[in-house]
């Protein structure tokens, strides 16, 4: 390979990148048009102007909209004055391009906000109806006169919650360590095989993370039965996936120098990780993990609502029976524990740095 060959390769790469960006811009424009049609037709027209309760759905109509949008989007993008052209920096620097960007951007923002308002059924009347205000008053009064008779029971349940969170966090540490090393690009770019492992772990943890702990709790309570074990597993799996991302990002941002130096002594991969990588990431790891314990206590409460055990399960039971004085005590205790955990974890993390 000679120098001019190398330049030729670079030139081709630039051309390819530009074509790719152009195609992406056209697709994004089509999406914007599609989105506008749907919002205006289905939400603003059907639900607000016609006041329909049920909206109809047909693939034929939606498909037609999609085709129209694709056509409009591509043509629009070809003019070089479209929204995406400007977003991707491909637009011609003309007045028209700037004006379209402003007008259409403003239009998108407004229809989105109006549709959001319609969909959430915002209503001042409902908020201040006599009936509603009276019911709220009753609940608040009960909440602020908690029933101390169930204190022992609630204390035991909240300790269970804290332990569920603690165990999930502790078990997650060694597993997260391994997963995060396998999903750090700078450690896995040796060859195609290691890159494949990297991609695999990235994919799995992205998938696991995108499913909320609440849903994992539902899955596990069906799988192994309602209770603290299901709650713990739900937290564990989500903690591993979330912290693996944070950990691996920390690994990716470490200094390369020590890694290079230790490799240059003839050390093997594990030795390089132990001596050049771990000392650089140990503090951020500790900090993430403690913070995560704090989050897990809060999540364990929520997970309890769907059968993950602990204080959450107790809360949902009393709430179902409309025993608001008992609910009051539980809510106060949760607030207290969350506040204390938050305080402790902040203090520890400050002490580390």
């Amino acid at each position, binding site marked *: *390979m000679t*120098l001019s060959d*190398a*330049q030729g*390769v*670079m030139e081709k790469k630039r051309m390819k990148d530009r074509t790719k960006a152009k195609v992406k811009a056209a697709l994004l424009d089509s999406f914007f048009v599609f989105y506008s049609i749907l919002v205006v037709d289905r939400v603003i027209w059907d639900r607000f102007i016609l006041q329909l309760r049920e909206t109809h759905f047909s693939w034929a109509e939606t498909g037609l909209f999609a085709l129209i949008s694709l056509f409009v989007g591509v043509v629009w993008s070809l003019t070089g004055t479209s929204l995406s052209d400007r977003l991707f920096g491909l637009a011609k620097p003309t007045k028209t391009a700037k004006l379209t960007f402003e007008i259409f951007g403003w239009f998108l923002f407004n229809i989105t906000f109006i549709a959001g308002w319609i969909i959430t059924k915002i209503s001042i009347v409902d908020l201040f109806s006599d009936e509603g205000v009276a019911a709220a008053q009753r609940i608040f009064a009960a909440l602020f006169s908690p029933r101390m008779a169930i204190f022992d029971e609630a204390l035991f349940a909240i300790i269970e919650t804290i332990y569920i969170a603690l165990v999930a966090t502790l078990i997650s540490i060694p597993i997260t360590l391994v997963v995060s090393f396998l999903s750090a690009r700078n450690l896995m770019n040796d060859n195609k095989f290691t890159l494949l492992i990297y991609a695999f772990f990235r994919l799995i943890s992205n998938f696991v993370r995108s499913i909320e702990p609440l849903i994992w709790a539902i899955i596990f309570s069906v799988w192994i039965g309602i209770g603290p074990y299901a709650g713990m597993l739900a937290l564990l799996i989500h903690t591993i996936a979330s912290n693996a991302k944070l950990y691996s990002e920390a690994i990716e941002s470490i200094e390369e*120098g*020590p890694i*290079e*130096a*230790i*490799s*240059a*002594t*003839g*050390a*093997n991969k*594990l*030795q390089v990780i*132990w*001596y*050049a990588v771990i*000392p*650089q990431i*140990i503090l951020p790891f500790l900090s993430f993990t403690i913070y995560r314990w704090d989050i897990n206590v809060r999540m364990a409460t929520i997970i309890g609502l769907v059968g993950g055990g602990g204080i959450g399960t107790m809360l949902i039971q009393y709430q179902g029976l409309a025993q608001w004085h008992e609910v009051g005590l539980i809510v106060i205790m949760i607030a207290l524990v969350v506040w204390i955990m938050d305080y402790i974890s902040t203090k520890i993390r400050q002490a580390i740095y």
Partner: protein
Amino acid sequence: MTLLRVNQVHKIYPSGTHALKGVSFEVEKGEFLVIIGLSGSGKSTLLRCINRLHEPTSGNIQFNGRDITHVKGKELRQLKRQIGMVFQQFNLIKRRSVLVNVLTGALGRMGTFQSLTENFPQKLVDEAMEALKTVGIEEKAHIRADALSGGQQQRVAIARSLMQHPDLLLADEPVASLDPATSNSVMQYFEKINKKFGTTVICNLHFLSLVRKYATRVIALKAGEIIYEGLPEDIDDDWFKTIYGEEAEEVEIR
């Protein structure tokens, strides 16, 4: 005896940069070879090809009579053990003690399990203290590495490479982030190792006054090619301007 034979080596980075364009030279055992050249001329790339932190794109490199251009795995680690390297940024493990940093130079000789449990045999610890003595900072052994000054950190890095008992010591601008006086003292340790242990040294340098003082031979790179090869005292004004460009002026450093 010839220790190193570099033959028509090219290096093209994945980004397309053609950093070395057919570099050839030989190094005899015991030499103190200095490589000079402008920033970006390919000096670091050349050193990294020799100890195979990078793989040459074409050409070949022989070390101790063996072709090492494309060695892999265990063989590659064996090769790296025989070649020490010192960096401009020292590249120590900041949070660990000076002693542990020096001991990392012996990782290639230790079993994986033994090294991960940090169970260093007394013999290695003694050796590490000896290496620290060679660079004159044995009293700092138990201090955290990042508490040392730049010059001291570079001496720790030299001690680390001594633990490899290297046949060849590479140094990539080892004094470029140090002040003139410290630069000179650090360079003296390289000289000492070269003279006392007979270790061959290849060193990238910027200051000609240091080059004249320490080099037994000089190679100058320009845009990835060797444009000068000879004795340091033969670099006259004309050569200087060819190497560093018409605008350049020599600065003194003592």
